[in-house]
């Protein structure tokens, strides 16, 4: 297959494959990643004039040469030149036999090593698997480039000397990809699209239904993004969105992916949380109007979601809160408000708890209480867009009362 050697997408798709190949044959993750970055810079210089036939082999060869150089200079520093001058172990090239999906999964397990903090897992995944530049990752999280560079190199140092001969923790990988997705609604780099791309690759590498559940969840949420903000950047809540702006192609793909995941689940092995959340998202996406939402069906899925935790109030309060809102739609605002009471100790100082109660007071036909709760929520909001939205809601319900 011919592809433009400098096509960014093609180049980025090669990064995890080359890196996985190097690490699999025993190179240190840290050193291999540095060497590959240098090889990429070299590629940008050389390829426009002399594009190689096999891009991946070229990158692997140049990165290997860099690794040898690095070992040489380190050896020189230690005055032990003769000890380490041997060429790196001959490439058994197990990597070339493995397909791209295996490489991606292998690297995700490296980057989402449980010893790393979530921030480091996210940064390393975007760099090593996503192929993003440190500058881009720093921009996405609004931190100085030096801070992100340090975070990445610390993470790589932590991995130094680790052996990656056992499968990693897929649950951690899924959580990291979801973190990337959630961050993607902010910065200048489209991390949401990047997370979807990585999740799609992951589903090619593992039959685990939860990986498909996560991809479906992202697609079914992402489909609504065009309607989520108005032209002035104001939040438009779900019940007021212009549903003709939802991306029907993404919804169709999300539903298809979700169905393929749910199809392999059984009573003994019920669907995990990403599949359940995706099912809820699918029900919202399926409704032509807000009033047409199948709330009883949504509630049934929330019952399943809450049942996944032994102690949902402490372990998954966000799900209990979201369920309380749905209870309000099915059984009335007062019933929903009662459900929120048991979260008071856990979420009582968070804006989401007050915002949910405000919405339930509205359903209960009590705009005065709703306005007070929206005002409480706005004072606790942690993002500018949410604070502004909550203040507008407070003003709107206050005016409705008058």
């Amino acid at each position, binding site marked *: 297959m011919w592809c433009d050697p400098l096509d960014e997408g093609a180049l980025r798709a090669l990064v995890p494959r080359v890196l996985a190949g190097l690490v699999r044959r025993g190179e240190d993750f840290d050193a291999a990643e540095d060497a590959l970055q240098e090889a990429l810079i070299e590629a940008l210089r050389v390829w426009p004039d002399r594009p190689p036939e096999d891009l991946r082999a070229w990158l692997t060869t140049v990165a290997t040469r860099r690794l040898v150089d690095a070992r040489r200079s380190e050896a020189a520093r230690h005055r032990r030149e003769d000890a380490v001058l041997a060429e790196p172990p001959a490439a058994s090239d197990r990597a070339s036999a493995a397909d791209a999906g295996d490489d991606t999964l292998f690297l995700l397990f490296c980057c989402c090593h449980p010893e790393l*903090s*979530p*921030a*480091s897992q*996210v*940064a390393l995944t975007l760099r090593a698997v996503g192929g993003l530049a440190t500058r881009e990752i720093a921009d996405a*999280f*609004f*931190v*100085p480039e*030096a*801070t*992100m560079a*340090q*975070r*990445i190199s*610390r993470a790589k140092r932590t991995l130094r000397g680790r052996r990656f001969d056992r499968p990693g923790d897929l649950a951690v990988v899924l959580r990291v990809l979801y973190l990337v*997705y*959630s961050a993607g*609604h*902010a*910065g200048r780099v489209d991390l949401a699209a990047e997370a979807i791309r990585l999740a799609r690759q992951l589903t090619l590498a593992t039959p685990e239904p939860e990986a498909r559940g996560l991809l479906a969840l992202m697609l079914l*949420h992402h489909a609504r993004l065009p309607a*989520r903000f108005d032209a002035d950047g104001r*939040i438009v*809540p*779900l019940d007021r969105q212009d549903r003709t702006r939802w991306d029907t192609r993404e919804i169709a793909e999300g539903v298809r992916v979700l169905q393929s995941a749910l199809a392999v689940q059984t009573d003994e092995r019920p669907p995990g949380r990403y599949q359940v959340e995706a099912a809820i998202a699918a029900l919202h996406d399926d409704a032509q109007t807000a009033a047409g939402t199948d709330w009883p069906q949504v509630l049934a899925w929330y019952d399943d979601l809450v049942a996944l935790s032994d102690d949902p109030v402490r372990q998954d309060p966000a799900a209990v809160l979201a369920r309380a809102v749905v209870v309000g739609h099915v059984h009335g605002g007062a019933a929903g408000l009662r459900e929120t009471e048991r979260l008071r100790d856990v979420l009582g100082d968070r804006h989401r708890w007050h915002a949910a109660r405000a919405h339930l007071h509205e359903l209960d036909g009590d705009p005065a209480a709703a306005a007070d709760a929206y005002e409480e929520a706005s004072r606790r*909001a*942690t*993002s*500018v*867009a*949410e*604070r502004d*939205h909550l203040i507008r809601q407070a003003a709107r319900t206050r005016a409705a009362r008058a």
Partner: protein
Amino acid sequence: MPKYLLLKHYRGGPEPYRPFPPMDQWAPEDVEAHMAFQRHVQELLRENGEYVDAQALTPAQTWVRYGGPEAAPVTTDGPLPETSDLVAGWFMIDVDSHERALELAAYISSEPGPDGEPMYEWIGVREVMSGAPEPD
């Protein structure tokens, strides 16, 4: 990952846990040690990949407001210039959790004062609003 401002104050905040004299009355080596600690905190945050910004402010504070059409801005030193809160500077950090922000603030508060004793200074911790909300 949330960002926090860790605020140091010239005055204001809760009753000091351990009152100390102004810095100009400290032994020169204690002043040096104190300043070295501030640099060390910056280094530590950079090392950890948690650093966003650090600044110090001069103590002079002027309040200013629009004076009305065609009028000059109106300024004042404030209602109670001797007792109101006065921010001295900050560290802005980008961390995994609120708990981590408190941990770092407590560490900053352990900065050495006279005789190298910890100052137990109150540090104001404020979360920075993010640019955009989480997915709904």
